[in-house]
């Protein structure tokens, strides 16, 4: 589980330290406060699992144990392309670095903006058999990670990490050079041309599910769906049961996940008791599509996550397309699925209803108060700050009509107030 993050120049975050991360974390804050950036860096960091060696020439020792991005994430997307797609980047950024594959199938990287004498100005990433590097890695490699940062030479350590070094036993440090993910202003140090962050905790996730707006509208990749079909016990049946808890009208339906007409993707099909023809889930409203896909993917993640293979669930805007009542049931179902499982959750939201539901879930122990915190983020002049809210803070604020999302006074047209006594509503659990 990741317990802290120390961030140097990732996207809009010039520097930031977040501690006290828990099993269930809710990220709230204004637009451009770093919520999505945090999800993306958690995604990238957790997918850096492909063993390799970082080879430099100008320091001793020249070889460091490292990792790089795996080729496919849990949903079988290529990670770098997935993030580029999120931001509308059609192509690889080419201005700030050179990358190629040499005869020994090592990736050679040159970062011309770093001084020529700097170790990371030019370095190689070398993989081991059978996971040799390929031409596709040239397109997709934007990151390496140090697995033994205790041995990192001083030239690899930005000032922020020198002064805010995590003191937890398990750490990994990640380095990104694609400038579209690097904070680009006020460079004063050679490492300011890289995004670098340290995650610390007591172990890393083996399976990472990143669910966002795009995932809700896409079909499943064939490789993901086929793997689930083969390996996730009663996958379709469990999806049907979860969907029925979120949409009671769908009780009794059967779910099939099968290839779409394209052949490369798979879609969900619902056989309702009173209909002879199955309906594709994408013929339903956006809320049902969102719920179906997040539940199908999460059931697969939870199934795979075991004690030795923990999972990480990153969920952006769970409120998307959801009616308030359905939203409550969806959140309850997600909490039910991850309860007691080695799955760490990060959920970013703009919705006061999501926060109110989380508070309700904390008050009724649907979520563990000891293992859940909300973090309000504040990003000013590149400095990320966070303030945590526990169950008592959330309940107190919401019962008084205060909005945890907001730092300054706003002239909102509506004010919400949590009922002081939230009664257990069976339809919400």
């Amino acid at each position, binding site marked *: 589980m990741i317990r802290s993050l120390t961030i140097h120049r990732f996207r809009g975050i010039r520097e930031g330290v977040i501690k006290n991360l828990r099993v269930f974390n809710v990220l709230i804050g204004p637009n451009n406060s770093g919520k999505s950036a945090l999800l993306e860096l958690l995604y990238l960091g957790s997918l850096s699992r492909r063993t390799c060696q970082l080879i430099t020439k100008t320091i001793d020792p020249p070889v460091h144990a490292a990792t790089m991005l795996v080729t496919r994430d849990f949903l079988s997307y290529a990670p770098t392309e997935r993030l580029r797609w999120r931001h509308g980047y059609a192509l690889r950024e080419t201005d700030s670095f050179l990358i190629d594959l040499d005869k020994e199938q090592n990736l050679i990287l040159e970062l011309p903006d770093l001084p020529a004498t700097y170790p990371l100005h030019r370095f190689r990433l070398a993989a081991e058999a059978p996971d040799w590097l390929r031409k596709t890695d040239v397109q997709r490699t934007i990151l390496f990670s140090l697995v033994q940062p205790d041995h990192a030479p001083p030239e690899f350590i930005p000032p922020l990490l020198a002064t805010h070094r995590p003191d937890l036993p398990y750490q990994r440090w990640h380095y990104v050079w694609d400038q579209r993910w690097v904070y680009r202003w006020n460079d004063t140090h050679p490492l300011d041309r890289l995004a670098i962050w340290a995650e610390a905790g007591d172990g890393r996730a083996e399976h990472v599910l990143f669910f966002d707006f795009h995932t809700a509208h896409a079909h499943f990749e064939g490789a993901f769906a086929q793997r689930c079909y083969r390996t996730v016990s009663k996958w379709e049946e469990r999806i049907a049961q979860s969907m029925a808890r979120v949409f009671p009208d769908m009780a009794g339906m059967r779910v099939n996940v099968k290839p779409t007409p394209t052949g490369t993707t798979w879609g969900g099909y619902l056989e309702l008791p009173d209909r002879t023809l199955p309906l594709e889930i994408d013929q339903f409203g956006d809320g049902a599509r969102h719920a179906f896909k997040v539940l199908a993917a999460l059931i697969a993640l939870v199934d795979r996550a075991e004690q030795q293979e923990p999972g990480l669930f990153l969920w952006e805007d769970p409120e998307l397309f959801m009616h308030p009542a359905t939203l409550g049931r969806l959140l309850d179902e997600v909490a039910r699925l991850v309860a007691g499982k080695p799955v760490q959750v990060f959920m970013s939201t703009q919705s006061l209803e999501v926060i109110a539901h989380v508070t309700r879930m904390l008050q009724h122990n649907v979520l563990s108060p000891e293992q859940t915190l909300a973090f309000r983020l504040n990003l000013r002049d590149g400095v990320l700050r966070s*303030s945590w809210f526990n169950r*008592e*803070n959330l309940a*107190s*604020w919401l019962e*008084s009509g205060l909005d945890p999302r907001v*730092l*300054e*006074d706003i002239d909102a047209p509506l004010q919400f107030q949590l009922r002081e006594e939230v009664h257990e509503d069976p339809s919400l659990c």
Partner: protein
Amino acid sequence: MKILVFAEGKTEEKVIERLKQFFPGFAFQTFDCKGKDKINSEIVTKLGPLVGQQPVRALILRDKDSGETIARIIQSVDNGLKGILKQRGINTSLQFQRVTGVWNAFVWDAPSIDFRLVIHIASRRSLSGLTKCTIDDLVLRLALNQNVAANLAQRQSLNVRGQVIIQKVTQEIPALLQRNGFPPLSEAKDYVRLYAAVLRMHTSPPVFAANVLASANNNLVQQNFASIIAAIRAL
């Protein structure tokens, strides 16, 4: 600048509502903590997420019950504040200081985190023989001004002089009750309820307070609530 006010009840809210006109440009948000026992927990849960994140200005309006001392009240709040800072990983070793010129208001100031909190402790009894010092004492004191009493009567369409009302409320009726074996009125709130009953105001003490404040001119309000105004100024 927003000032967060932690009050024992709704009467304080009405008082702040009236006093805020003396502080143009400041916003006030009052939290009814429903009693002194919950003020500390309200401070912790409301202020905790703000500390170290943004400027915080907070005012506590506290009554002093019989048996309580100012020192003990201050210590209790001080413990709560230090608890917040410890919980949020902030090191400081500050103490409350008396607000200059105000003997019953104390300020806790931490410039490094832009946090300032003032506690105002109601410390005057409006009439002799009362056991507590409360916000109702301040309201009652204002209501016992002849002009205010006269204005209140006028609002109720009563053709009675202010002095007569005061005489009834503070002397004749309490004396009558005592002569008939009733225990003496012991709290300002008792007199507030009696006053409201005499004027046929079918209202709660907070609403009575709002009516009293509306019946007093600005000079009188500023005089009567001078210590609270000074406490707010200290923020």
